[in-house]
């Protein structure tokens, strides 16, 4: 059969797959490529830069592969044939050094971006940062606002333009805390506190989830980050404080029991130092959360 037809068939398959995928994906939200926060924005730019830099080297390789394979096909007796030619100092020097130089460029970018976008590094901003403590449970997310003394489950309101210092731990197997449109992602581990600094630049609802398998109800472990104006945020906090439901230590113990697809819930108050207590539990075995202390927020 004609080889050219086969080559064409191959290119059509390649194209067909891409068109099919693009058609199916059309109109969907490519969250990682559609950032709504400063960190996610920088990460997206980095991704695009890396992809373009890689394309510079990859596309010629694709072309060379098929050009060389086709030109030197056995049937083409006109092409040169040098069965013993197996070494060229110049050529080999080129393909050791050119990729190496590209990698050096990318390494500099890597080094700088690793420091600039270090999740543990506080963000530069004129606005006062907001601390939110995140606890991964089986299988839901608890968000504690230590300065506002309120708490939520499976949703996390945040003010736009304000650096958020997420302090993250787990009272469950290891999870990973990820809000793709704001920037990702850091592990939630029991007995430890990790940090993720994010800043939402636009009002909106952004999906967050756990990215690391944590047992039965893992798939239901997603939440919504509500980015709202600072005024709306303050209003939300004030409203929440008026709710009749407070989170007592006993409530927490119950909440920490395994459960699937929990509804979004808000609590008007939290026990003091709940987050630290949860971490300390794994450092001092046998320690049990106090169940009697019923703390009302706002009077501390």
């Amino acid at each position, binding site marked *: 059969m004609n080889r050219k037809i086969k080559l064409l068939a191959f290119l059509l398959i390649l194209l067909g797959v891409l068109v099919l995928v693009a058609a199916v994906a059309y109109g969907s939200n490519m969250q990682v490529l559609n950032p709504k926060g400063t960190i996610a924005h920088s990460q997206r730019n980095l991704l695009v830069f890396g992809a373009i830099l890689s394309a510079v080297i990859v596309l010629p390789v694709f072309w060379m592969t098929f050009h060389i394979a086709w030109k030197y096909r056995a049937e083409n007796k006109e092409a040169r044939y040098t069965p013993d030619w197996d070494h060229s100092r110049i050529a080999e020097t080129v393909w050791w050094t050119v990729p190496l130089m590209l990698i050096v460029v990318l390494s500099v970018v890597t080094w700088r971006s690793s420091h600039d976008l270090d999740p543990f590094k506080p963000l530069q901003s004129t606005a006062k940062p907001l601390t939110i403590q995140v606890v991964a449970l089986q299988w839901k997310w608890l968000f504690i606002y230590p300065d506002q003394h309120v708490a939520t489950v499976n949703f996390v309101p945040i003010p736009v333009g304000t650096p958020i210092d997420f302090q993250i731990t787990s009272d469950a197997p290891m999870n990973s805390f990820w809000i793709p449109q704001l920037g990702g992602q850091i592990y939630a581990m029991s007995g430890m506190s*990790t940090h993720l600094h994010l800043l939402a630049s636009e009002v909106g609802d952004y999906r967050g989830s756990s990215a690391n398998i944590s047992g039965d109800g893992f798939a239901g472990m997603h939440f919504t980050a509500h980015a709202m104006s600072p005024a709306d945020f303050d209003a939300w906090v004030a409203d929440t404080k008026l709710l009749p439901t407070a989170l007592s230590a006993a409530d927490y113990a119950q909440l920490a029991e395994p459960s699937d697809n929990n509804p979004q819930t808000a609590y008007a108050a939290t026990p003091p130092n709940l987050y630290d207590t949860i971490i300390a539990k794994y450092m001092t075995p046998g320690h049990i959360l106090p169940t009697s202390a019923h703390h009302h927020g706002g009077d501390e």
Partner: protein
Amino acid sequence: MHLFLPTLVAHISPDHGLFIFGAELTIIGGGVILVALITYLKRWKWLWKEWLTSLDPKRIGVMYIVLALVMLLRGGFDALMMRAQQATSVGASHGILSSDQFQQVFTAHGTIMIFFVAMGLLFGLFNLVIPLLIGSRDVAFPFMNSTSFWLYAGGAALINLSLLVGHQFAATGWLAYPPLSELQYSPGVGVDYWIWSLQIAGVGSLLSGINFLVTIIKMRAPGMKLMQMPLFVWSAIGSIVLIIFAFPILTATLSMLALDRTLGMHFFTSAFGGNPMMYVNLIWAWGHPEVYILVLPAFGVFSEVVATFSSKRLFGYASMVWAIAGITFLSFVVWLHHFFTMGAGANVNAFFGVMTMVIAVPTGVKVFNWLFTMYRGRVRFTTPMLWFLGFVVTFTLGGVTGVLMAVPAIDFQVHNSLFLVAHFHTMIIGGAVFGFFAGLTYWFPKIFGFTLNERLGRAAFWCWFTGFLLAFVPLYVLGMMGATRRLDHYDASLGWRGLFVVAGIGVLVIGLGVCFQVLQLVVSIAQRHKHLDTSGDPWDGRTLEWSTTSPAPVYNFAVIPEVHGRDAFWETKRHKPELSAESTPHYTDIVVPKNTALGMYIAGAACLFGFAVIWHVWWLAAIGLLGVIVLLLVRLTTDATEYVIPAAEVARIEAAGRERRLA
């Protein structure tokens, strides 16, 4: 004990879910049919004498590959179930599997594909061709080789046994991170099955690695210097060195997890001073080298295939060797890139990110050298070459996505997403598996004496290639949409379903490719008389294995060849055509190891030990362990382990081979 007795009475019933029931029926039904068939054909003696107890590395290699392909079917069916679940479990519908079943299925899929498919194909290829490529009659330790195979088979048996006895496997993901894999969160026997099947197969891998390293170092044909070895052998050295350094880490890590679970220790528990982060570090200190253990030999296969089918010397041999050495070293200093998200800090993350990218340099060098091997050659587009060209496309794509993920700041946005899943499947299918298939097609005639049907081989390739793109390009896009891996359910509003359906179709197309491969094997066997490889050299080969008859006799070479440079056979054919013709060489007696079933028994005892520990039946564990020790002592005190093929017999076999060649 109280746990053991009621559960051991395996009540095979649909109570455990339709799919587990189906799998149980398949295992039992398939086993019964196989036994009946062998009995009907009166093949038990043949099977026992020619295969199961054989110490011939070629036979052992074939057994590795047959078992790996059976496991490929199981792992592939797991993949199909996963995609079926994800295509149906949207919004109000919850699909065909419960979340616990789904999690067991993806854990089994990953575990089986890496440990029992990829590793099986790898050791299968090593066994088939390494002695032939270096002009040796055998491996250094034939009995240990058989034991390694049976330990691998024992691990595979144990993983399948989990379906029958206990009806559960780990639901933790294929690397079973604690604390999820600790007793606190996984109290059943699933994780224990996972631990002990890997532990037993892993010891086999380590023994095999040592065996082949010694074989290559000590048993090369006279005159073959290290820098004159076929490149596949160099790639095998890289892979083996990694096995020898990495597998003890796996064994130690699994042992510690087993101690936690079985004896209540606290290496990796969340409380009482345990540290799960240590486990994550250790498992990847094995896990990253493992990737290169699999892919380096694929590079080696392509180096042989491209040179042979371009009828040209491999370009940049020294570069290739240094690239392998570089990759081997670097693959030990990049493990942390599997968990940039654990919060190690900017300096540490950046260091491991840069080290990871540096690997792209030697890998790229290899690609360029292959391209320049074709340059000014005479390229024949046989099936192995198709696998190579497909590999260049997929592997480069995987390389690019790999370099992107090596930047920690980018990794934070794609880690544990389907983008990552797509990336490593690109590397393992588009890298290692394509390479193994190319190698199997290429060396098939040397082992069986006839070539495989080309037409069906091409059909299989195109299905695999198209199916691969359909199955994994959508996953890259899904990752960009924020889809994490291992989800058994998601909301309809996310718009992920269409892509999951496309990915599912891709798995079906790959399945069609597997059907073509099975068909290819059946048709090729049926038509073998038409495609007999009477010359011993069907591809106009370059290396020593093509200088002996096909199928290669049990002793590989009647007269050990002398080597004076690279591409030894090619040079012989070119410069001394009279040597390959009619002169009758001087034959001598050849010493060959006798058959033995002891390796099988040792692995059986090891399995018994593992099984007993899983179920906490201590007296049985003691018997298993004692069995291993006693059987080893029996072997060590056996003297007559070899027999002699007299020179006259060698002459007779060789004369028959020459006759075939002339006919």
